[in-house]
């Protein structure tokens, strides 16, 4: 007996009084929600993903989109989603795929952390009139400085600094591969990174030649599939990142469906046209920290020790111990990707149920590195669900040197978080390789929007720091005294090492 179809999630309607029958909704919806039959535009709500492209492009504001009323008997445990997932799997026998970040209804720790400000005895600093320093260097630092005496008897610096990335703002753009997202999306972010004095990750998709002009602001990635990796690629990056894991899907590899492997993607990734690009769950040459050390040093050797090497891991329960190992592996920075990290495609069960929130992960990594005396020597980059400048400031106060943003950058280019990236039909021209859709994103306009976002957050961070009487990012980093927990339980407060509101 057939299971039948599940009720549509969204209900799309057109106000026929307003509609002028221009057909832009048909042109804009890559999922085929609208079609013309005779002189009428028909709607198939079942196909709608809630990407809001049609609503945004309708010249008459004639389209309405609502979540469809629940048709199931309400039940606190057997939710609509639980039942629909079962129905889908009963039908397909397959893993359910999902895009974007964790969509489960867990409370955000960030939202229950409050920042501090000065009053009276301790003047706040006005960033409009006083210098405010957000410059951040990412990379290896010496634990102490050594000096030597010259023959003339002068004292001079004996310590030589390792190569570091100079960021004018502690906001970087995280790794999203060419293939998962479009070239125009990459170009937008690369231009924005250059303009704002920061860096973006290439993801594991190689580096398209159109991005070469921005290579000084790019961090190249070595993931388990090694797609697009050769010495030319490594040398083009300002830094190299080894991806061990990703917050949206800790413990598993990556999968770019063959449909997204266009000629350009194929050339850039160095894989056959139209073939699935499957990154293994582990790197098959890394089964221990010792193996990781070898890869870190091999990459440094290949680039003549001129580039910082980062190692990215997903936030999991023993993240602190792993990060401590990475810190001792010659890596220059450890990237921690929290459980709210985004993804082009992940098994839904991973996206929503594996890993730990970034807030707890940064706090425990920072603490462990301090206990081991290595915190100062290695940079910590936090990512995974950074939504605004407050999340950014709180991440730094918990111990991060800088953050990676991913979904936020996509939203600044138009993404409406519909979560269907894995289908390759992104109507906003972001998570797609279909040329007509890619063309919808103008890289100049996209760059302006991404750089506006970074600029705006940087201004807000300056204001937050100034309010706390702090004029350099160094004094914000790990400054948990400037945070208070509100309605967080004792256990979380202990992990965060943050006092309660009022204390």
């Amino acid at each position, binding site marked *: 007996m057939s299971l039948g179809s599940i009720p549509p999630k969204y209900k799309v309607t057109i106000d026929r009084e307003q509609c002028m029958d221009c057909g832009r909704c048909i042109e804009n919806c890559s999922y085929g929600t609208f079609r013309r039959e005779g002189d009428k535009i028909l709607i198939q709500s079942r196909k709608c993903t809630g990407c809001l492209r049609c609503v945004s492009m309708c010249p008459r504001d004639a389209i309405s989109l609502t979540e469809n009323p629940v048709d199931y008997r309400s039940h606190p445990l057997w939710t609509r989603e639980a039942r629909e997932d079962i129905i889908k799997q009963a039908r397909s026998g397959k893993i359910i795929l999902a895009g974007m970040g964790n969509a489960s209804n867990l409370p955000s720790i960030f939202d229950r952390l409050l920042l501090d400000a000065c009053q009276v*005895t*301790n003047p706040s600093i006005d960033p409009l009139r006083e210098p405010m320093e957000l410059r951040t260097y990412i990379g290896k630092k010496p634990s102490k400085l050594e000096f030597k005496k010259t023959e003339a008897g002068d004292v001079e610096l004996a310590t030589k600094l390792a190569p570091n990335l100079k960021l004018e703002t502690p906001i970087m753009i995280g790794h999203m591969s060419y293939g998962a997202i479009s070239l125009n999306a990459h170009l937008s972010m690369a231009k924005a990174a250059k303009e704002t004095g920061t860096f973006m990750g290439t993801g594991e998709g190689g580096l398209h030649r159109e991005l070469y002009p921005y290579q000084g602001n790019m961090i190249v990635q070595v993931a388990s599939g090694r797609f697009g990796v050769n010495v030319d690629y490594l040398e083009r990056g300002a830094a190299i990142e080894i991806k061990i894991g990703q917050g949206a899907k800790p413990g598993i590899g990556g999968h770019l469906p063959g449909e997204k492997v266009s000629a350009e993607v194929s050339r850039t990734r160095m894989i056959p046209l139209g073939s699935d690009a499957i990154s293994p769950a582990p790197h098959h040459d890394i089964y221990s920290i010792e193996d990781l050390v070898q890869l870190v040093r091999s990459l440094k050797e290949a680039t003549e020790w001129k580039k910082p090497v980062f190692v990215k891991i997903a936030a999991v329960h023993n993240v602190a111990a792993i990060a401590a190992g990475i810190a001792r592996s010659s890596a220059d920075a450890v990237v921690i990707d929290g459980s709210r990290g985004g993804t082009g495609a992940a098994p839904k069960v991973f996206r929503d149920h594996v890993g730990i929130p970034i807030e707890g992960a940064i706090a425990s990594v920072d603490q462990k590195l301090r206990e081991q005396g290595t915190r*100062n020597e290695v940079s910590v980059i936090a990512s995974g669900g950074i939504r605004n400048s407050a999340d950014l400031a709180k991440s730094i106060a918990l111990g991060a040197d800088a953050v990676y943003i991913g979904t936020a950058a996509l939203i600044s280019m138009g993404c409406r978080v519909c979560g269907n990236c894995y289908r390759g039909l992104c109507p906003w021209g972001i998570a797609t390789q279909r040329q007509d859709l890619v063309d919808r994103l103008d890289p100049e306009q996209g760059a302006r929007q991404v750089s506006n976002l970074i600029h705006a957050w940087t201004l807000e961070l300056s204001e937050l720091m100034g309010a706390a009487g702090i004029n*350099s990012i160094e004094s914000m980093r790990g400054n948990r005294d400037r945070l208070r927990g509100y309605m967080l339980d004792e256990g979380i407060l202990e992990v965060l090492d943050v006092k309660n509101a009022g204390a």
Partner: protein
Amino acid sequence: MCGIIGFIDKTKSPMDGSKIKAALSLMNERGSGDGAGYVAYGIYPDYADCYALHVFFDNMVEPKTKVDEILHRWGTVVHQEEIPTVEQPGLKRVHTPWRYFFKPFDDMIGGKVGSEKDIIKHIVMEVNASIDGALVFSSGKNMGVFKASGWPEEVADFYRIEDYEGYIWLAHNRYPTNSPGWWGGAHPFNLLDWSVVHNGEITSYGTNQRYVEGYGYKCTLLTDTEVVAYLFDLLGRQHELPTKTVVKALAPPFWDEIDRMPPAEEELHRAIRLTYGSALMNGPFAIVVASNEGIVGFTDRIKLRPLVVGENGDKLYISSEESAIRVLDPEVKNIRTPRAGEPIIGRFNA
């Protein structure tokens, strides 16, 4: 608020404590009667090779027994006594100030304990973090801190400050705004030879605290200034940075200034910020730090607290107020206000 004053005679000619008391008392509107303190260097010539450990005891039984046990484990108590005090009508006596003259055993040095100063640091941290009712508030050689909750005159009279003669003096009149007014929270804060008086608040305290705690320092005194003494001990003693470099780590130039420096200087200042970013201090502050080598005064990077310097021959004065310096020395010359972050260093003549 808070009033600070520092004095050094570069020829090591001693000065008794009466003038410093008068100078500090002049700044009483910078205090609230919740804390005052003094430190003098050169006051224990008879025990110059011993560490003078000043300890507040809540009672002379349990806490003192525990402190004695620790001291006997690590070295020899050459002499000990109650610090002479005179009861004051307005000063509530809540602790008994005691002093030990202590020599660590040579054979305890090894492994992580690289010097006898490491032993003293360890003892101070252990006592202050783990023994209820005991607090080591001074631990250097041939110097001593005297502090309590009260007005400057009361605290000076309580300890008979005028009976001590020192060639460096620091003094502090406290107006606590972000921490309790208690004896341990009064300034100067001290570890080994480092003594610190401070006017202001350190907004980077959380960062600085976590940084020094990574090196075995334990912040137990409920006040942000404590961390300054530990930063000087870490950077100045353990990392052997010159005093000027320590100040450049704690109150560095801004990046746009660093960017404009000649290459070697730029590299040095960039290296300092990259290496010691967690030691950088933010917030409003004017600080004077003393050691057995001299004194150094400096303010925060945008100078949110006042600091005045004056000289007279071999004497150097640093204070919150010019008037306080003039009480110490009416003939003072070269009165000036240093630039933000500029280290004012007074060293003994060679």
